[in-house]
């Protein structure tokens, strides 16, 4: 086996040293458990590398075809261009094949990359401090609520915008199911697409959770949310599923958000059928000891030289066990490193320009679509690079028509999660969409709705 260097000579010598004669003697367990001889595993026969490659290329064909179609899919998994530098750098074995940087002297590369990532997320979110990653935006949202509970001992119920990504709400429900934090969902305004904040109903609030932008692409009013949260004594948690929006929108920190969470996939990760992703979390200095997950600090070595090292590990499970702020151990470190690379590759003006380009492109398409007879823009709220259209057809039917004849993924059918809006489609526009793509979409929609 090409991954296992033990030869029969090696085996003999080592068995001898150990003082036994047969490999099976190594397995110091009840023999009735050693099932390998009686019942060898029933797995597909091993394939040589060339055949694995051929098989996987065959499997990948379908996806290549799908990915070559014109796409306006978004909804939390965002299509962005990946600079060629990134894959060249991230595949370096020193990054790829290292593990948790518990030994700082042997891990300054990973540590510094993560410290830079923390800085980037803090700068983007306008918060004081960010951690070194969580699993994804959805679990980050759940972790944020649990964190809020640790901070806000008085609050009881978490109020969650119904316009928050439906999957995030589902994950939140799973996480909170057995931990005595009731969830109340807040409806959204059918005109603006923004969450309806009714402070009078929320006086047991532990935390208030809103999307920024929300699932409909609408930029929620964080100023109002802050006021309401303060009024009811709740912590304000904002959730960003399209991290690129942070490069153009007023940062959550500016509104006094207590905990910012988000999905960082936009920063250099391909859609990847939904994973790996990159959970973001950031907060105020005062709450830093309540943060879940890993934190990298800048300290000194014994000669006083700058050195990076894991800090406040006393929050983490390997030290605090059941009293830890979270159970997270393995996180998304490599994805965080990628995000750092991505943000560096774009830089100050590049990232801002990219976000602007997304906003303008989405705006253009929205304007064009709105002019098509039979299409309306149901929500008046401002958007970044995603928006909802409403047509006279069912969303499912319309998307089928767009795909079948015209090879267009027209967006996400909102009726799956919002049964009351069966004709709404969530359309995402990024720098990946050319003017021709958009014209094609407009043209197709016009035809279908004729």
């Amino acid at each position, binding site marked *: 086996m090409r991954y296992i260097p033990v030869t029969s000579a090696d085996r003999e010598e080592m068995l001898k040293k150990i003082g036994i004669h047969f490999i099976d003697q190594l397995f110091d367990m009840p023999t009735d458990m050693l099932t390998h001889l009686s019942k060898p595993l029933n797995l597909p026969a091993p394939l040589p590398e060339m055949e694995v490659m051929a098989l996987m290329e065959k499997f990948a064909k379908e996806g290549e075809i799908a990915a070559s179609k014109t796409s306006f899919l978004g909804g939390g*998994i965002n299509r962005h261009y990946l600079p060629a530098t990134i894959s060249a750098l991230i595949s370096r074995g020193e990054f790829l094949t290292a593990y948790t940087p518990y*030994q700082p002297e042997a891990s300054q590369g990973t540590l510094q990359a993560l410290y830079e990532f923390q800085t980037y997320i803090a700068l983007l979110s306008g918060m004081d401090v960010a951690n070194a990653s969580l*699993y994804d935006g959805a679990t980050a949202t759940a972790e944020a609520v649990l964190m809020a509970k640790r901070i806000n001992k008085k609050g009881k119920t978490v109020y969650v915008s119904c316009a928050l990504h439906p*999957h995030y709400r589902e994950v939140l429900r799973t996480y909170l*199911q057995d931990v005595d934090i009731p969830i109340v969902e807040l409806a959204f305004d059918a005109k603006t697409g923004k969450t309806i904040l009714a402070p009078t109903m929320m006086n047991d609030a532990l935390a208030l959770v809103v999307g920024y932008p929300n699932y409909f692409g609408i930029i929620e009013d964080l100023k109002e949310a802050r006021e309401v949260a303060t009024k009811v004594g709740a912590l304000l948690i904002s959730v960003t599923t399209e991290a690129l929006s942070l490069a*153009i929108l007023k940062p959550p920190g500016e509104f006094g958000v207590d905990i910012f969470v988000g999905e960082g996939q936009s920063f250099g990760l391909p859609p990847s059928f939904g994973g790996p992703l990159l959970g973001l979390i950031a907060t105020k200095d005062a709450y830093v000891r309540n943060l879940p997950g890993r934190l990298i600090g800048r300290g000194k070595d014994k000669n006083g030289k700058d050195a990076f090292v894991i800090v406040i590990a006393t929050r983490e499970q390997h030290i605090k066990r059941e009293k830890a702020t979270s159970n997270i151990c393995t996180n998304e470190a490599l994805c965080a490193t990628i995000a750092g690379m991505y943000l560096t590759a774009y830089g100050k003006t590049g990232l801002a320009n990219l976000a602007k380009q997304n906003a303008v492109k989405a705006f253009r398409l929205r304007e064009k679509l709105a002019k098509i007879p039979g299409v309306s823009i149901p929500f008046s709220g401002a958007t970044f690079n995603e928006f909802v259209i409403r047509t006279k057809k069912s969303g499912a039917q319309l998307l089928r028509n767009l795909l079948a004849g015209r090879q267009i993924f027209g967006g996400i059918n909102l009726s799956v999660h919002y049964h009351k809006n069966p004709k709404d489609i969530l359309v995402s526009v990024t720098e990946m969409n050319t003017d021709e793509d958009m014209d094609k979409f407009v043209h197709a929609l016009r035809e279908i709705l004729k």
Partner: protein
Amino acid sequence: MIHSDTEKLIFEQGRAGRTGIDVEGVCLIELDDALSPELRRGPLAGFPEVSEPEMVRHYTRLSQRNVGIDDTFYPLGSCTMKYNPRINEAVASMKGFTNLHPAMPQTETQNAFRILWELEQMLNEICGMDAFTLNPVAGAHGELTGLKIIRAAIRARGEKRDKVLIPTSAHGTNPASAMLAGFTPVNIEVNPDGSVNLEALEKALDENVAAMMITNPSTLGLFETNIKKIADMLHAKGAFLYCDGANLNALVGIARPGDMGFDVIQTNTHKTFSTPHGGGGPGAGPVGVKKELVPFLPSPRIEKFDKEKFGKVLFVPVYDKQSIGRIHSYYGNFLVLLRAYCYLRTMGARGLREVAEAAVLNANYLRVSLAEIGYRVPFNRMCMHECLLTDENMPSGITTLDIAKRLIGKGYHPMTIYFPLTVHGAMLIEPTETETKETLDEFIQAMKEIAEEAKANPNLLHDAPHNTPVQRVDDVGANRPLNLNLRWKQQ
């Protein structure tokens, strides 16, 4: 190669006006129409302005300040730092996988579903379980998922058990996951060799116990010999037996947790199934369960609908009513699972058995050899995939930490240290099956030198490492509230 000994933060590099990847600006009037200025932020203050060559050099140099399995022996116990096959990386970067969007209609992504479905079947077979969810993205995430499943099953039974028994030698994620799942973790004392103390278990076991979490092989690298008895004890009380499968590498192809009485198991693909550790992730933590628990698996699951009924085979994500619900935004870490799939297609049954055999052989070879040169091996029995030493035999003042740091100076990544917590000065050494005997012999030689240095020149150890980009890091200092520095700030 040798570099100027510090690499500046990226925020301290660059200069105003430099650009990286080029993006055209937009027309400001149009922008104002698209997004009103009052919603927009100012410039990204603090962001670096660097050219592409600066970016490439920065990250190249950072990587050179790291070690990985690719460049050295990395016997980090409990972490299974095995070789990460490059074909898996090649496959995981195929556009036909990376560019799949999870919102594409299911008919467009059948092969992705097929891969997940087939992977599930293979994991079932390897672990002796009836079904797997692939959605958890790490071991701890799997633990949480597994415990939630148990909770749901207990709830479905109409019961209300809220204790989870956890041996004191368990990994920290176990009690933390139990808490997160809303249970009360109860510590169960272990025998000196890390095995569950049956009397302690007996005492703690009552109708309020939902489950016990056992790591097998244990975090001391030893097989839990009484596992079937423990399973019977728990089952007799209506409790479930949970397997922390982080150490599955010792068992693949040899024995199956499902056959030992475990009801739930989480596996760690980044350990057993060769997906890269990436400096701390991403991983994947698929969770397998026995039949009784299948309805409670998280949503979605991938089901296969057969030709007979549908004209063609169809893979469909399904949502079970009894499911604990969603635990990840989409299907888990697909690209990680894809790597695990390739690995299993490469290894087959015989290959997996060789994995466990070689992993255990290597660990025992180290155990015996290191004992021979004077290190204390607390348990005089066969170990599994890792062997445990302590610093007890060292001259006074020499600690496990010193040994670890000296190993760094000798070009190695150290073993896991001070874990498990139940063993004083623990050094947990997991060589994995992908290391050569020559490498093990060199490592033994290095450990021998260290033992000698410990006597002859203890300061060499206290001061270690000497030749690294930074020397012994002062983590106490870095943690002092006034020093705490978690991000760069603009001056």
